[in-house]
């Protein structure tokens, strides 16, 4: 039996002892949204032949959730992770869970699953003790068998003990194995999704080919802010096999062939109406500052700023910006929806199965029990698939055509147009350092476009103020969570500003951070990073092209070191080397964690150097990968990753932390190479050239993006 078939059979009917009606697909215990179930049976099932199935409401986005969660179960049950069969993200079969994002899996879900597995272990050992008539202490467990240590021929197995039933014994909270007895945690294990992905067998939402599927292409307005008024579908309808679905301003063209549906859509003549936002990718920063100004409020306030500024010997004023950036997952939003017998089933590319269930139920005015999400392999998420607008479209159409699977696969242009971007932002900071270069005497920030996330981490600051706007619908374009949201914008500003202070005061940037760090973990991590990378203390710019930045996400800490070469005639930045030292507590799956760090560094080289959504009014000018430039192989530096040996049993997630300091480390490296400070993400060759021009014309007293600084209507306090 194929793996997925086994798991579906297990949950849906193989435990016939508990299911009077065969074929029923409701979960064993209906799980309450908003809380993890206390019954371990929701997470783990053992079939009559002793196979172990693990059910978790997360998605495999490529981050390796499938493998690391299986490791945790295997560790407790003395199995090989390959023996733990994973079923992820099916809202009928898996217990409720949080979205797969925000580095939550290892932080929130992992301890719950580990606890459930520990309880199952204890329950199985208890049953075996009874069956074999020896105390638990005399038993050994491995590969699904349990035997008497002194007499290995006296043995039983998971399958024999459980007999395909639900395990009824409960022991409450059972402690997982102590780390000293763990044999898997901390070891490299093969990824469970490897074979499927290298042979093309892995099924993504677009790969299902359900019989009778109709592919739906939705008519889009040319610009955000516009909606459909009239549509002439006559030409499209002449294409044999075409169906049109219209619901108010929503119109879709359906055909059994995806490419024919797309071609027929192009034959629809629509007229659109509505007001586009009067802004573009150049004016957006002033737009945000102006719009945010009346709503600015103090989010962090500590100490006396004016007094702090009086104590300052070095003061720098900086302004940092970042553009809108797309998630640009290689798999665009994709979903197949089918309405049958009063229930909507969606095979979706989603990071958040349970949120999507709610989103679809709300949009279609259905009860949540009438919606089932079956998560497929997901071709990248990064925050972009936390919401499922494409899935809602598929469901809306499916609701009108009962029994027919409706597939919505956005093309690249739609995916770039409809994405919820990483918000554009402006961060202004005025801050100062004392004469001894040992204390930040004041730090005054005002932002527009993002909010506070992680802005206060890492350093001792005598007087601190952080202002952010409480303005609804601040952005003219849709924005959303993009890997380490807010944190990477704030860290880019903070770490660039600190570097500017260090340079102006003539102090080595590592030394300065050493003096300011308020966390012994950060101090150790700085040492680890600098020792691994090599660092001769010197105030910048040294010409070496090495930049440093620190970052945090919850309790996860990262120190990044980058080395770049800047071509002063073209403005092109070539990243030669990049190191991250990472402290995320206990690293369960070292190779998986390393992949996340390598991936974050690579992805953020694109963020720092090239990725930017260009727009004019509501029109998105980037329509494909020719102008929306992702990092390709030639852009990849030598990458080093080191993990802090933390001696802790708790684990932080690793999806976000390594993102946080990348752009700042690269900007600081550009400064170290050239003396020019790039303050506008992405620092494209044009922006680097502009920054280089500034160096030759004025001293680095202030840090301002080019061509001109933005004057906020509400300015930071002037003592």
């Amino acid at each position, binding site marked *: 039996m194929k793996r997925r078939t086994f798991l579906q059979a297990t949950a849906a009917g193989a435990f016939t002892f508990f299911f009077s009606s065969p074929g029923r697909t409701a979960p064993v215990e209906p799980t309450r949204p908003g809380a993890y179930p206390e019954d371990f049976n929701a997470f783990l099932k053992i079939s009559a032949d002793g196979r172990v199935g693990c059910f978790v409401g997360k998605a495999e986005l490529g981050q390796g959730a499938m493998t690391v969660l299986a490791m945790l179960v295997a560790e407790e049950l003395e199995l090989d992770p390959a023996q733990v069969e994973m079923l992820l993200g099916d809202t009928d079969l898996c217990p409720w869970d949080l979205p797969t994002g925000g580095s939550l899996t290892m932080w929130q879900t992992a301890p719950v699953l580990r606890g459930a597995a520990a309880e199952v272990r204890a329950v199985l050992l208890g049953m075996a003790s009874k069956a074999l008539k020896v105390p638990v202490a005399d038993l050994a467990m491995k590969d699904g068998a349990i035997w008497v240590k002194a007499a290995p021929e006296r043995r039983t197995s998971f399958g024999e003990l459980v007999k395909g039933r639900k395990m009824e014994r409960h022991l409450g909270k059972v402690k997982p194995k102590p780390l000293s007895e763990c044999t898997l945690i901390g070891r490299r294990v093969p990824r469970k999704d490897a074979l499927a992905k290298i042979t093309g067998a892995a099924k993504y939402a677009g790969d299902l080919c359900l019989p009778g599927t109709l592919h739906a292409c939705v008519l889009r307005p040319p610009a955000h802010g516009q909606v459909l008024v009239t549509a002439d579908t006559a030409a499209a309808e002449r294409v044999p096999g075409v169906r049109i679905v219209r619901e108010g301003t929503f119109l879709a063209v359906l055909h059994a062939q995806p*490419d024919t549906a797309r071609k027929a859509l192009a034959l629809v003549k629509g007229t659109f109406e509505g007001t586009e936002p009067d802004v573009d990718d150049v004016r957006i920063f002033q737009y945000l500052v102006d719009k945010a100004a009346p709503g600015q409020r103090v989010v962090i306030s500590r100490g006396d700023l004016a007094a702090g500024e009086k104590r300052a010997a070095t003061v720098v004023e900086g302004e940092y910006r970042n553009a809108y950036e797309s998630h640009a997952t290689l798999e665009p939003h994709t979903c197949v929806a089918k309405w049958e017998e009063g229930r909507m089933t969606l095979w979706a590319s989603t990071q958040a199965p349970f949120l999507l269930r709610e989103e679809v139920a709300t949009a279609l005015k259905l009860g949540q029990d009438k919606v089932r999400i079956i998560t497929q392999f997901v071709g990248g998420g990064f925050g972009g698939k936390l919401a499922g607008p494409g899935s809602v479209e598929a469901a809306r159409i499916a609701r009108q055509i009962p029994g027919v699977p409706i597939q919505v696969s956005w093309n690249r242009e739609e995916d770039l147009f409809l994405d919820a971007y990483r918000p554009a932002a402006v961060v202004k900071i005025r801050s100062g350092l004392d004469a001894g270069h040992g204390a930040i005497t004041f730090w005054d920030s005002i932002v527009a476009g993002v909010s506070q996330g992680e802005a206060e981490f890492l350093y001792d600051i005598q007087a601190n103020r952080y202002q952010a706007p409480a303005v609804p619908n601040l952005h003219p374009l849709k924005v959303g969570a993009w890997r380490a949201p807010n944190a990477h914008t704030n860290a880019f500003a903070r770490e660039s500003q600190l570097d500017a202070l260090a340079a102006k005061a003539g102090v080595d940037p590592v030394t300065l951070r050493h003096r300011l760090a308020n966390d012994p973990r950060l101090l150790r991590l700085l040492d680890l990073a600098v020792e691994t990378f090599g660092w001769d203390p010197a105030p910048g710019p040294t010409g070496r092209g090495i930049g440093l930045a620190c970052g945090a996400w919850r309790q996860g800490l990262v120190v990044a070191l980058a080395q770049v070469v800047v071509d002063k005639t073209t403005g092109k930045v070539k990243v030669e080397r990049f190191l991250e030292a990472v402290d995320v507590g206990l690293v369960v799956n070292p190779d998986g964690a390393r992949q996340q760090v390598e991936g974050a560094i690579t992805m953020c080289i694109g963020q720092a150097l090239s990725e930017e959504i260009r727009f004019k009014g509501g029109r998105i000018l980037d329509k494909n*990968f020719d102008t929306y430039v992702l990092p390709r192989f030639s852009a990849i530096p030598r990458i080093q990753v080191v993990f802090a040996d933390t001696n802790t049993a708790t684990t932080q997630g690793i999806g976000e932390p390594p993102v946080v300091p990348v752009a700042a480390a690269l900007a600081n490296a550009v400064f170290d190479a050239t003396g020019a400070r790039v303050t506008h993400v992405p620092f494209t060759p044009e922006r680097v050239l502009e920054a280089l021009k500034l160096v030759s014309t004025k001293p680095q007293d202030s840090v301002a993006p080019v061509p001109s600084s933005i004057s906020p209507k509400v300015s930071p306090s002037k003592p």
Partner: protein
Amino acid sequence: MNATVSFMLNGKPVTVSSPSDRKLVWVLRDELGLTGTKVGCEAGLCGACTVLVDFEAVPSCSTTLGEVAGKAVLTIEGLAVDGLLNPVQKAFQEQHAFQCGYCTSGMILTAWAFLKKKPKASRAEIVEAMEGNICRCGAHVRILEAVETAGKTMGGVR
């Protein structure tokens, strides 16, 4: 208008009745059910839909059915022979040279076509050969290493 087009697909002859200007990617996915070939940009910019036509790596989103008439098409599904993984697949598997897996079919086929011609390639040559394939998750460093390893196993030990 449909044309009847015959070609070799993963070592076996197939005949397809479809418009000859239909893009190969849709013939493969929609008509023949070979969904290992992915759709990423439909403009030949990302490499996710790469297949081999007479051992040349081409984007199947920009290749028509008519263009492969009488030729040999190899997709990811046809790369392992009798369950034996191809050296590139093996290296990708062992070195975890992927994350989400959406670019993987195209990466493996691009690398295979390149290594067939040049197993002893330098790192710079591998970079150049892989430049047209996008990986969004950032598995690049591992992909380069896997391609290098595969080249060595294929007898290209340098």
